[in-house]
């Protein structure tokens, strides 16, 4: 039946009515002509025709699209009944909007950072090639490569790789165009854009000859940088940018969503050359087509002997291939997924709340339902009506959620840690098809989660009481109360899980912020120096020693030392270590610092037991100084001096000669890490000069630069910074991340708690209203106000108690996931758990306050007179 008929039903009904009338008239005329009386004639005509109304209804139905018609009826009915009960409607819509909105916002972030595929051709075939500790091939930190010969060695492994290209994202604090501020730049091999299958949106990609020294001063810039610095001017090609005191010509602008390395969006990419980047780089490779990842990984280990590797590392490192399918390191990923779970809980709580509201509403509408059923509505029809109602609420909630989500996404963006912020910026935060599909899906989910039980509950069951019941004495039926109980406990349980999570994060954050650096970081400077090309072994060692003595003579310098790895950066992830002779001991991860003997004095790190290295001690002596926290972990209650550490890479045992105070390092939250100091390398290729100056030292850094240049013009200073700066960056970058998760967790837990409290309040108010006669009878029989209060609080505490129990079990099971983002606090921290439970109980009691007071004020006479 056509749509035009559908919309012209009324017209056709009129037409047919007139036509039927015309039949009756004609038949009556004929009957009169046959000799009947007019009265008789009309009767006979009607008899001949049959039931006119029935015929009209039949035609009307023919013109009707049944589903649409009943849906439309349900919608009108729903709007009418919701308008009559705005309190219910608004509460339900707001609750759902918060639940859906928060999920949408977090999903949009997680989608951009985790779920969206990388914008490369066949990203599954791309891997990074790294060296991992033989003992722990599951890396904690990526380890850069140092020997440019390695690249050729890997390229020769044609049975594994179709392409092997270096890139270098390590030196990234340049200031292009002389502007201050962190503007990351990445050096990439000229073949990398082709390997990724990415073309610039404007201009050209790198050509092979761009990788030749002297011709390498060309740059591809990011879309964001193009917009920021050049106002998206297409005439940017040929203009220049200054990076690290070198002038580069812009040859192309990369697409908006381009990211490289995966998970980061630098401002510019410049050609990688052996001359400028050969001292430290990463390797991107494409697997030979048809070779599986696991197979490739296995084969890479097989050929490791054919690859150039630094002497000291040979035998201790094995090649490790990593898929590049993931943007975030496992920890950031875990943290985001935890947030996604948390916000999912908020959603479930919201749904439970709305379900509870609907249950109560269904209970008060028993009469209406009974009447509708009595005049012919089928169960299915009633069910459809209730589901329509929850659909209307969910869709309204979903639409409100879209507004809320755009606001929340902005909020999340504002507090996102810097690296993630840059990454997220590349995606339109505006609503796109993916996000819209998500919102639609979650809205429908909300409709069913919140509406199904109440609908079945309201429609099913014995309807006779609905018609006959005139007394409110019966109160709520047992069945409904049982459902209330379930939803209530669910809400409280989920809220508790979130509260415990937020509590643990708060504890972790406080510990992190209050953490002392462990030494005096004022007037302390770090200068990263790489050796002149070609310097090896003792030659490099004496270069650094010479440099150190020269720097000490600069006026204003109080002391100077060398180290590989400084606290504010992170130490190098080394092997896993076990205490020798302790069976079943848990391994610690060594964060290794290679330090000169004067390191502890210069930084002011006290050695609290044992001794410092002697000046002659090299790494070959197998001595080590560890931090006191680690010593306490490995040998609880005993002195660590003279004990030995066994590494599971099979290197010689290390003897502990000293114990130092722990310092605050970049690797802040990895569990079981151990600060391991080893004597400064005899064949360094890279080191930091650490300098302590007097107050107001003057142009010390400039003099240090001059000293380096004077000693050997080919040596390169890669970075300089004060430790205060480094710790400020540390606070921004490292502490920002837990701060971000903490803020969001607190918001979610707050919303969850508020929703649960409102739920408790609503339920109890409803129950007081329902049981007012019962309360009246009890009071008439001698119950005091206190008895009544206890009665109500008991009724609330049963589901709350069950919820708390559920919550504890769930969180003991779930907070394991938090381990990765917690700092110096156990996921099972009893103090946190107990105080959170106490807080939750307090809030639940507070939610009972008003309804209890109302109940206690019930006048027995009035209550009974209602009957």
């Amino acid at each position, binding site marked *: *039946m056509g749509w035009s008929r559908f919309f012209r039903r009324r017209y056709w009904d009129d037409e047919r009515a007139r*036509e039927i009338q*015309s*039949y009756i008239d*004609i038949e009556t005329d004929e009957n009169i002509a046959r000799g009947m009386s007019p009265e008789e004639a009309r009767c006979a005509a009607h008899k001949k*025709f*049959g039931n*006119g109304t029935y015929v009209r209804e039949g035609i009307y139905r023919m013109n009707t699209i049944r589903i649409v018609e009943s849906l439309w009826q349900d919608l009108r009915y729903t709007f009418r009944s919701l308008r009559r009960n705005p309190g219910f409607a608004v509460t339900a819509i707001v609750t759902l909007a918060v639940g859906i909105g928060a999920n949408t916002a977090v999903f949009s972030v997680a989608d951009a950072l985790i779920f969206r595929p990388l914008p490369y051709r066949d990203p599954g075939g791309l891997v990074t090639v790294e060296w991992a500790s033989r003992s722990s091939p599951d890396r904690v930190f990526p380890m850069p490569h140092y020997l440019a010969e390695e690249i050729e060695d890997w390229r020769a492994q044609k049975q594994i790789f179709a392409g092997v290209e270096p890139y270098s994202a390590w030196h990234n604090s340049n200031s292009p165009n002389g502007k201050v501020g962190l503007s990351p730049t990445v050096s990439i091999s000229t073949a990398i854009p082709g390997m990724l299958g990415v073309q610039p949106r404007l201009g050209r990609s790198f050509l092979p000859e761009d990788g030749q020294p002297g011709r390498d001063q060309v740059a591809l810039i990011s879309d964001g940088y193009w917009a920021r610095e050049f106002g998206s001017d297409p005439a940017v090609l040929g203009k220049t940018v200054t990076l690290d005191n070198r002038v580069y010509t812009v040859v192309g602008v990369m697409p908006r969503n381009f990211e490289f390395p995966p998970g980061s969006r630098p401002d510019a990419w410049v050609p990688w050359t052996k001359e400028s980047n050969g001292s430290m780089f990463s390797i991107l490779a494409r697997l030979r087509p048809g070779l599986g990842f696991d197979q490739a990984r296995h084969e890479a280990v097989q050929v490791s002997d054919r690859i150039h590797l630094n002497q000291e590392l040979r035998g201790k490192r094995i090649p490790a291939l990593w898929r590049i399918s993931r943007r975030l390191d496992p920890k950031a990923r875990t943290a985001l997924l935890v947030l996604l779970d948390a916000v999912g809980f908020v959603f479930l709580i919201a749904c439970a709340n709305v379900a509870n509201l609907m249950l109560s509403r269904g209970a008060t509408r028993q009469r209406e339902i009974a009447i509708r059923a009595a005049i012919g509505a089928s169960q299915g029809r009633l069910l459809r009506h209730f589901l329509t109602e929850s659909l209307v609420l969910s869709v309204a909630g979903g639409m409100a959620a879209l507004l809320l989500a755009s606001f929340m996404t902005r909020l999340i963006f504002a507090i996102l840690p810097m690296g993630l912020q840059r990454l997220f910026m590349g995606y339109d935060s505006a609503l796109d098809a993916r996000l819209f599909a998500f919102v639609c899906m979650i809205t429908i989910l909300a409709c069913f989660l919140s509406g199904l039980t109440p609908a079945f509950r309201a429609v099913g069951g014995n309807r006779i009481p609905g018609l006959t019941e005139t007394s409110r004495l019966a109160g709520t039926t047992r069945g409904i109360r049982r459902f209330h109980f379930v939803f209530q406990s669910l809400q409280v349980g989920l809220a508790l899980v979130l509260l415990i999570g937020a509590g643990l994060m708060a504890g972790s954050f406080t510990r992190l912020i209050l953490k002392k650096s462990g030494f005096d970081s004022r007037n302390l400077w770090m200068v990263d120096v790489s050796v002149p090309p070609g310097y090896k072994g003792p030659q490099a060692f004496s270069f650094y020693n010479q440099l150190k003595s020269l720097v000490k003579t600069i006026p204003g310098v109080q002391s100077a030392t060398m180290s590989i790895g400084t606290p504010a950066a992170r130490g190098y992830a080394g092997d896993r270590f076990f205490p020798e002779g302790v069976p079943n001991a848990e391994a610690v991860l060594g964060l290794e610092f290679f330090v000169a003997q004067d390191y502890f004095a210069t930084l002011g790190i006290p050695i609290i037991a044992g001794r410092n290295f002697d000046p002659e001690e090299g790494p070959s002596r197998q001595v080590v100084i560890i931090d006191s926290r680690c010593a306490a972990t490995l040998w609880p209650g005993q002195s660590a001096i003279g004990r030995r550490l066994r590494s599971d890479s099979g290197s010689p045992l290390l003897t502990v000669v000293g114990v130092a105070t722990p310092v605050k390092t970049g690797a802040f939250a990895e569990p079981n890490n151990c600060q391991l100091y080893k004597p400064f390398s005899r064949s360094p290729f890279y080191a930091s000069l650490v300098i302590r100056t007097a107050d107001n030292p003057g142009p010390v850094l400039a003099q240090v630069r001059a000293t380096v240049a004077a000693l050997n013009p080919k040596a390169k200073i890669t970075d300089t910074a004060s430790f205060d700066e480094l710790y400020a960056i540390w606070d921004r970058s490292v502490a920002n991340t837990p701060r971000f998760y903490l803020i969001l967790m607190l918001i979610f837990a707050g919303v969850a708690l508020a929703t649960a409290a409102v739920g408790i309040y609503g339920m109890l108010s409803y129950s007081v209203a329902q049981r007012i006669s019962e309360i009246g009878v009890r009071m008439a029989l001698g119950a005091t106000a206190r008895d009544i209060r206890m009665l109500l609080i008991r009724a609330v505490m049963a589901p709350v108690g069950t919820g708390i129990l559920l919550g504890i079990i769930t969180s003991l099971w779930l907070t394991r996931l938090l381990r990765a983002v917690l700092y110096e606090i156990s996921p099972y921290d009893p103090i946190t758990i107990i105080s959170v439970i106490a807080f939750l109980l307090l809030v639940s009691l507070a939610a009972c306050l008003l309804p209890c007071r109302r109940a206690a004020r019930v006048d027995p006479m009035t209550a009974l007179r209602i009957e």
Partner: protein
Amino acid sequence: MPKKGTPPIQGEMLQGTLDLLVLQTLVLGPAHGHTIAHAIERQSENVLQVEHGSLYPALHRIEDRGWISSFWGTSENNRRARYYRMTPAGRKQLAEHISRWDLLVRAINRILRPATE
């Protein structure tokens, strides 16, 4: 006239059958509902006795399919009445319906009276 004792066929007829009869009635020219109803009843020698009302949904349906069209006119005894006219599509449908009907009747007859056929 039907033999005594043979009850007239009443109630719901096969939908397609009613359509066929309506179309066949309109072959002779436009007619209104009353005429059509009486024509079917008369021409079937009163075997097909239906409530005349049940004709109207059929008319509505056939008109909706575009086999007939309708207009308001004046009846023989000066009453306003809705007249139906066969459309070209209707004419084609009728031919098809008739051949299908013949086919059906032949088939059923073959089953009921195999010997005589």
